[in-house]
């Protein structure tokens, strides 16, 4: 595999580490079926982390380690914020896998696209909304357009 492929996988792994942290924080503020959903998605990211670490190791690369803690994008003290955090985390994961979509290896591109899709579906499950461009940065203002409403 080329260096760009390894680098993209490392970025995806770093995003999975952050997602695992994010779901641990979110889950602490959720109860009942939402807590179960957070637990389920936390497990999905654990499995993805294991897969990426194994793949990188087999390529002779040293997998990037998790950090001790991560800066949260906003304070999380409520179930509502916890749900927003889960959706946020999934969009960051989608962004990282878009890096995998940009590599030259066709099989890796296809796999990356499937991960982007899975992350977007989880984000939609949490937020109840779809976004136009999961994982892509908001576009520079070529044409002013209202941001998607954040409040129901």
């Amino acid at each position, binding site marked *: 595999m080329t260096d*760009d492929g390894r680098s993209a996988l490392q970025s995806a792994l770093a995003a999975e580490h952050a997602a695992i942290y994010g779901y641990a924080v979110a889950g602490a503020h959720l109860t009942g079926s939402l807590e179960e959903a957070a637990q389920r998605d936390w497990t999905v990211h654990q499995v993805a982390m294991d897969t990426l670490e194994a793949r990188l190791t087999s390529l002779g690369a040293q997998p990037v380690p998790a950090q001790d803690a991560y800066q949260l994008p906003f304070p999380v003290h409520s179930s509502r914020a916890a749900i927003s955090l889960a959706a946020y985390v999934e969009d960051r994961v989608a962004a990282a896998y878009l890096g995998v*979509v*940009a590599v030259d290896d066709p099989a890796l591109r296809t796999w990356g*696209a499937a991960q982007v*899709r899975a992350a977007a579906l989880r984000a939609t499950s949490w937020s109840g909304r*779809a976004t136009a*461009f999961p994982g892509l940065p908001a576009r520079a203002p070529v044409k002013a357009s209202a941001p998607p409403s954040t409040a129901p």
Partner: protein
Amino acid sequence: MVFPLLAAGCKGVRALGTPPRPRPDVAVLDDAITAEKLMIARYHAAISGSPAQAAFLTPLLAQHQEHAARLTSRLVNPRPASPAPASSPTATPQAPTLTALQAAEEDAADALVRHLAEVTPSLAQLLASIAASEASHAQLLQSRGGTG
């Protein structure tokens, strides 16, 4: 002759070092833009046929319009409308159901990622992102009353 803009945001790791491959990009873009126009026509028909669903469907329609705009912006010289599906007498003869929209979204999402290997890195990223968006639409349509 139309060339895609390769300088759009979201550079792939190798984007700067990869020579342009314009022909597959243009063909794939054309197909994707045509598919978005068809989805827009379907949503217009669905909203007309079922105004009670307008509040639910309009945001999804707006996202398809964003998809079409961003795809079109990658063409230096956007074509002045191949016959738009909306104006074709054969397209969308009746309002699609939520189930039909769901199936169309799933098909569209699958079609977008079919040619990922042939296009430039930044277009591959855009196609994968739009495909993920449309899969999310299908998920919302399903929970709204489509089938699964």
